[in-house]
């Protein structure tokens, strides 16, 4: 796609999303809100995994931290939703900085697994800290004081706002000195260090940014659902879903993860509605197919300007024994 065509497409799409509620019914408002949240999660993951090259498998921990911080701030401090969600973002970013210190030193599988371990650890702590977090029984958030349609619209736009913020942040990073530094350390960390890139600092900034947006999405989710429990906000299934979305769209690109989120979530909705009993299996199958045949996502097809069986097979050939 040529640059100007792409820009036009994005502008049109954004406008359509803004004006969407005029024509969308509640079912579709819900679906799109869900898509926006997933897309923000995918974009957030893209910042640490795609731009920086550190695949934080357990990044969903920040979703949970955002959700719980938002809930706790709203309940215990009576904070308004937006402030509480931002608070969640800040807390998550702080956590990323603290754990980033020891964990960003790890490579490959070990880094991915450490993040998984952190997610499980925090989930276990939240589950047990019943006094503060409601423990395994979950946390109930206050319902918005607005009519039904009003609530749907609020969360639609809140989620859309978080998504747009994450996309804008990614755009700014990619075109900045920080972006150059991140891409260089992704490709060759030692090579980057010897030409002056402060890799530890940049990695940490990237992770904190990723955590911030992931947590914001969690903050919107929590108030939307009005009920959260450890099992569903520190959920690895969620983690894998948004990772696959980022992959599907194109890891490392700016808009890829958003596209991937749209496609996979719409597909998910379809599968859920048609194949309820085996929807887990169907999703699992989709995930496997994506990883095997389209590891570089749609962005690859767009760049290659063609869609052929050969591309799929080539991907397999590159990764097999």
């Amino acid at each position, binding site marked *: 796609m040529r640059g100007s065509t792409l820009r036009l497409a994005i502008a049109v799409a954004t406008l359509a999303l803004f004006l969407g509620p005029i024509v969308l019914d509640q079912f579709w408002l819900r679906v799109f809100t869900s898509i926006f949240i997933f897309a923000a999660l995918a974009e957030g993951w893209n910042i640490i*995994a795609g731009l920086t090259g550190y*695949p934080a*498998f357990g990044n969903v921990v920040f979703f949970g931290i955002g959700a719980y911080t938002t809930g706790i701030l709203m309940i215990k401090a009576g904070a308004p939703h937006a402030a509480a969600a931002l608070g969640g973002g800040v807390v998550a970013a702080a956590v990323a900085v603290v754990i980033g210190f*020891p*964990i960003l*030193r*790890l*490579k*490959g*599988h*070990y880094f*991915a*697994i*450490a993040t*998984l*371990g*952190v997610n*499980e*650890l925090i989930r*276990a*702590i939240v*589950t*047990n800290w019943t006094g503060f977090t409601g423990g395994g029984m979950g946390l109930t958030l206050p319902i918005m004081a607005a009519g039904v349609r009003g609530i749907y619209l609020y969360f639609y736009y809140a989620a859309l706002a978080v998504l747009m913020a994450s996309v804008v942040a990614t755009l700014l990073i990619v075109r900045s000195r920080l972006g150059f530094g991140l891409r260089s350390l992704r490709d060759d*960390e030692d090579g980057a260090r010897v030409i002056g890139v402060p890799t530890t600092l940049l990695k940490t900034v990237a992770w904190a940014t990723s955590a911030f947006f992931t947590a914001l999405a969690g903050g919107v989710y929590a108030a939307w659902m009005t009920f959260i429990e450890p099992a569903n906000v520190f959920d*690895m*299934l969620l983690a*894998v879903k948004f*990772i*696959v979305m980022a*992959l599907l769209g194109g890891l490392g690109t700016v808009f890829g993860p958003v596209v991937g989120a749209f496609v996979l979530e719409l597909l998910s909705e379809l599968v859920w509605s048609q194949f309820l*009993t*085996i*929807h*887990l*299996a169907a*999703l*699992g*199958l*989709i*995930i*496997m197919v994506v*990883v*095997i045949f389209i*590891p570089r996502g749609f962005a690859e097809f767009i760049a290659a300007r063609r869609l052929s069986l050969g591309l799929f097979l080539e991907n*397999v050939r*590159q*990764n*097999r*024994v």
Partner: protein
Amino acid sequence: MEIIAATAINGILLGGLYACVGMGFALTWGILNVVNLAHGVMVILGAYVTFALYKGLGVDPLLTIPVSMAVLFAFGYGLQRGVINLIVRAPVFMTLILTFGLEMLIINALLFGASADFRAAPPSYAAAVIRLGPFIVPVLRLTIFAVALLLTTLLFLFMYRTRRGNAILATGQDKEAAELVGVDIARTYAMSFGIASAFAGAAGSLIASLYAFSPVLGGPYTLKAFLVTVVGGLGSMAGPIVGGLVLGLAETGGSLAFGETWVEVVSYGLLVLILIVRPEGILGKKYFAEVRN
């Protein structure tokens, strides 16, 4: 004092079981460099095989081990050749996601076919105890520990004393070099994965005899396998044994010290701590887990 000793003994016995759970996982990671998130469900599959024989033919669960191992071996071999093979050289998180998708598939298939009901296959002597000095030890746990030890010894002998085993070890250390001396890599990978799956199957049989199980326990068992492997370390066959013992002791000790519900926190805290302080694990070789400073 007696409580502590009893806790320690229980921890050690449990450790044997956990070593069995983790052995296959460590094998897959060490040789194929694949972290198999579906390992836990394969353990559960083994448990179901045992349950089927137990329920259907009244066979003692521990005697079904050869069968569950054979079934899982075939399953694993085929799985590796057909699916895992395709992403062996892909970036790290790809294999994690693929095996996660696989786990979802298998869990759903099990839920569909066998329902989410908890099953168990306790042998006739499940409640029997034996006196060892001042301690009372359940016979079943002791037997399980012995079986786990036996299997591990057999694996050790296979790996170090047979040609096939040596080929597997060589492939794990240097794939290209192994290929140059004539090792069939594809076959070796399939064999390794088959063996790893067989161990998962055996672990499943042991678990079926001791606990209740259901498809949803796949995830937690995978995490246990993680812990065992990471704590024990890659690159040494004794790694999972040490890891298993540590986990067993941590769980029983943690339960005693902080209560049942905090055991999870202790376990995952241990995982994160080890990765921060000594990622290569207790017995692991450093080159598996280099750290940037």
